[in-house]
């Protein structure tokens, strides 16, 4: 297998990390909705930690993307 083909396959595999980020952000969003429904008066603090949480969950997808880009455009 040529190196270029291997790099393309690797890039494709790397962006699979988006799955985990998607699931994580989905769970965080669902829990945030529940929390705001339970305590609407705390929505400011809840959405603050939600933003932080999705930023951290998203990081894995971003790492995958960066790896994929690195493999594609070495």
């Amino acid at each position, binding site marked *: 297998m040529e190196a270029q083909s291997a790099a393309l396959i690797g890039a494709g595999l790397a962006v699979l990390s988006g799955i985990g980020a998607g699931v994580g952000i989905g769970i965080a969003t669902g829990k945030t909705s529940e929390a705001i429904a339970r305590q609407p008066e705390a929505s400011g603090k809840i959405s603050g930690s939600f933003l932080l949480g999705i*930023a951290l969950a998203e990081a894995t997808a*971003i790492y995958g993307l960066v790896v994929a880009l690195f493999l594609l455009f070495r």
Partner: protein
Amino acid sequence: MNVSERVIEGISIDTVFTIHVAGLDIPISDTVIASWIVMALLVLLAHRATRRLSTVPGRAQALAEALVSFARSFVEENTQGRGRAFAPFLGTLFLFIVAANLLPSLSPRGGFGFEPYFTIKPLTRDINVTAALAVAVIGVSIGARLRRSGLKGFLRSLIHPMPFMLPFNLMEYAIRPASLALRLFGNMLGGFIIMILAETVLPLVLPPVLGLYFDLFDGLLQAVVFAYLSTIFIAEALE
């Protein structure tokens, strides 16, 4: 020009000119020039907003006042009132990232044989720019910890719960700026690549719609997230 060539051309960073100083060649990339434009714009706007301060603010002054009071109250709230002195730094960081993310989407774009006189490509597509921002944040948070608890307190915080945590605590100082830098870089570069693809697939139709999300919303959101995480890191250093 096929798709991958366009993408490669889009994400590549060009050296516009080189400065020769003291026997050193300093290449000035287009992202540096873009960040100088962003800085000049911010300084001009700030100067215009605060040139004549009146008790009843005009539009520019009202916006600047809202920004200042929001930054102060936000930082104060998140640092339990200890981080008031860091509000200007975090606010400047936020303003820079917002302007850096939004300005390129306002710049003219080429296509259909039309070559604009200049185009500003996103400066956050350069890992060096975002890494510099993240390193500055971590540097400031280390400085805040030193100022708050002294060198002894800083060293003690490295072995905080137990001595064997030392490598992990040290790793945190590498992982945090890396994750900050890569998050901003990856988001903006990903969005930029998707915009290039959209322009290739369906020009004139897709870019304005997708641009609302990838340029405006994501640009603002990433600036907020970056400033928020920076605030939290500094707040943690001040505990």
